[in-house]
């Protein structure tokens, strides 16, 4: 129990005293997760729409794969990416291991199935009359996609936020690919893992609170934007 109160106290101390290490981890987390989510949305929303909207052979298989990949443990994604970008792997020459770019690639694969599956299910749930309305107004396939997603914007935003949550809270990829190297690739979650591993639970909780504060601010910004878009 005392971890809780200690954790809250520690969280304030960290944020107020301006511990350089922690700010570095916060900054790293923001940088890599922003990059990852943008990549994920750019690829995932169109893919999800195609998967939910069009009928093509193998559609159900694709959907099943995407749904299943939502359940891939982050460390397994870490391992798989590692197999490719390790020096002894096929892309070893790119020098992605222990870099934030490497982490972003892994997080992209973590977020992608979430965005694809949730966007596809939002698209599936779209009323047929919305589709027909857009078609009768002369929308091209691209406009149809964009406008359908706009009609279902709540669900798309929810998909994005869910994916962002998965990305910002994951530790498997950041640890395996990033390596939790201090000042370089240490993110809040790997720092939490480190503190917890050291038995410094209060510090772990404090960092968790810091992470949640970031998520809270991001969510707040998104819902302000959403409210603005709705009106």
């Amino acid at each position, binding site marked *: 129990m005392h971890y809780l109160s200690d954790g809250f106290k520690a969280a304030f101390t960290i944020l107020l005293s301006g511990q350089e290490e922690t700010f570095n981890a916060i900054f790293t987390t923001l940088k890599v997760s922003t990059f990852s989510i943008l990549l994920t949305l750019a690829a995932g929303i169109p893919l999800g729409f195609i998967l939910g909207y069009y009928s093509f052979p193998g559609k159900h298989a694709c959907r099943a794969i995407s749904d299943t990949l939502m359940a891939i443990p982050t460390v397994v994604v870490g391992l798989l990416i590692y197999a490719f970008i390790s020096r002894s792997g096929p892309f070893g020459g790119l020098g992605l*291991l222990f870099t934030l770019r490497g982490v972003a690639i892994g997080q992209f694969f973590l977020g992608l199935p979430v965005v694809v599956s949730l966007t596809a299910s939002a698209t599936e749930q779209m009323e047929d009359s919305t589709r027909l309305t857009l078609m009768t107004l002369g929308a091209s396939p691209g406009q149809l996609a964009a406008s359908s997603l706009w009609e279902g914007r709540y669900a798309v935003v929810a998909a994005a936020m869910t994916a962002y949550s998965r990305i910002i809270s994951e530790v498997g990829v950041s640890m395996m690919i990033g*390596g*939790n*190297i201090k000042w370089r690739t240490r993110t809040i979650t790997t720092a939490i893992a480190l503190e917890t591993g*050291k038995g410094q639970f209060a510090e772990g909780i404090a960092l968790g609170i810091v992470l949640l504060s970031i998520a809270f601010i991001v969510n707040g910004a998104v819902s302000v934007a959403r409210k603005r878009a709705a009106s």
Partner: protein
Amino acid sequence: EVLRMATTTSTDNTGLLDYLAPEFLKDTGIELQWVSVGTGKALELGKNLDVDVLLVHAPEVEKQYVQDGFGVNRRQVMYNDFIIIGPPSDPAKIKGKTVKEAFISIATKGAPFASRGDKSGTHVLELDLWERFGYGQPEKENWYIQTGQGMLDTINIAAEKVGYTLTDRGTFIKYEDNYKGNPPLVILVEGDEALFNQYSVIAVNPVRGDHLRYDLALKFSDWMRSDKVQKMIGEFSLLGKPLFVPNAK
């Protein structure tokens, strides 16, 4: 210039590397970047040429590793020792006994014993001890808890189960520190020859990859074994208790 090292969690968690790395930079101009993982994973990262140097503690495995051509220049740098800890009430009555007596007493009384079960240096030693005392590894025994986790987590589990575990001293001191010197588990067996924990530096075999910084790895190895650093290691302490004993050869 950057030297990449894979090491075990004990060196990182105790803060030893945070203590040494800035000094290394100052002395050689080389930045030490390390990932702290289990011994097995550290060795695997070396095998895959993702790091240049290793700092690990599992002598038998290390020898095999070097023999297989994955590593070269294995050098001992320091040791700490293992201890058996348990609740102050000591239900298996092992306090002050030898390791052998203690293990047998725990097994016959069926007192909870937390094993790391993760092929770490500590785990390898523990298995070796059971073997030596003619027990074989207890597997599905109710009292034998295989945690598959790091040392501190394993200690915590032992504490929750009011049982025993085998740990390295460094982690225990850290554990004591977390409890402000008043921990639920205390040292019951220590000082036995069988409980030595040797740390070595191994360079990853440079013939296996062009990009490997073997030169830097050797510099690190030499630096670690220098008198100055050996002294620093000996002085490194937590709660006023020294953690490592330098023994470079």
